[in-house]
């Protein structure tokens, strides 16, 4: 490999991002070529070593209190949905009402009417079943993400 190619790869060599064979080749070249060795040392000296030895800055002590205050301030604003949709009982009732309105308002053409209507009836039955307190509550409690880390994060 010539000097130009070696110099092209020096940044990756410094970061140990080259495969073993290339890395050995560059290593050998640097031990025998003064010009490339000087460039290698200059790259390390001009930035890499300075940044890698830098001390880590720490977050200010009171930052958590500020974040906590920010989170508590934002808590009451539930995202987007109108108030009545946020209440589970209302949301079920609303869903049932929307489906009933959709069935009565939309006139479907001949053959498809039967299939869609029976699908909609099934949906109504299902929503009524849920609205009577069946299903959802128990199911929601049973959802377990299963891993310790998920419990920790969520």
């Amino acid at each position: 490999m010539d000097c130009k190619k070696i110099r092209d790869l020096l940044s990756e060599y410094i970061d140990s991002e080259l495969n073993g064979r290339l890395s050995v080749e560059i290593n050998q070249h640097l031990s025998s070529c003064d010009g490339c060795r000087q460039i290698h040392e200059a790259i390390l000296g001009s930035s890499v070593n300075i940044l890698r030895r830098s001390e880590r800055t720490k977050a200010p002590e009171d930052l958590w209190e500020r974040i906590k205050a920010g989170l508590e301030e934002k808590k009451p604003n539930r995202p987007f949905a109108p108030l009545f949709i946020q209440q589970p009982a209302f949301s079920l009732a609303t869903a049932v009402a929307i489906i009933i309105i959709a069935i009565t308002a939309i006139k479907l053409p001949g053959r498809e009417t039967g299939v869609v209507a029976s699908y909609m009836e099934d949906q109504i039955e299902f929503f009524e079943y849920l609205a009577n307190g069946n299903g959802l509550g128990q199911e929601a409690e049973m959802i377990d993400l299963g891993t310790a880390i998920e419990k920790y994060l969520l």
Partner: protein
Amino acid sequence: MEAFEKIYKAISNLIYNVAYRITNNTQDAEEATQDVFIKIHRHLKEFRFRSSFKTWAYRIAVNTAINESRKRSKKTGLVAVYDDHTESRETVNNTRRDLEKREAQAAISSILNKLNCDQRACVVLRDIEGLSYNEIAETLKININTVRSRLKRAREKFLVLKCANSRFG
């Protein structure tokens, strides 16, 4: 909130350090960090473990810090100059150790100040946070060749400036 405080304690210094190195000063870094944790809290349920939590947090931190930095340059029309973190947070005294610390801090600031936001993000993640090219690519959602070329260009820039300084300075 207690569980979230544990997350904060585990990664706050990491987030703050990235934010401080990418933005130009402590005030922006604090605002960015605050913003990052509010975003993490809001989107925690969307985190699906497809990437590591650290990568996800780094991504939010880098993007938020870059936005903060751009907002400031837009507002002032200038790239803010790095402030001296050690001087603003600790009692200034003239012991040799403190002097060395401030000099090192100034050197880091002057290096990072010469880069644009994209290059700075790559350099911070590589040389300060120690991420591999793959991890940087995943964090910034860019191609690994872009990581490679941004780091190479940044180092060439430092080299040219060093040569110019030693020749004319």
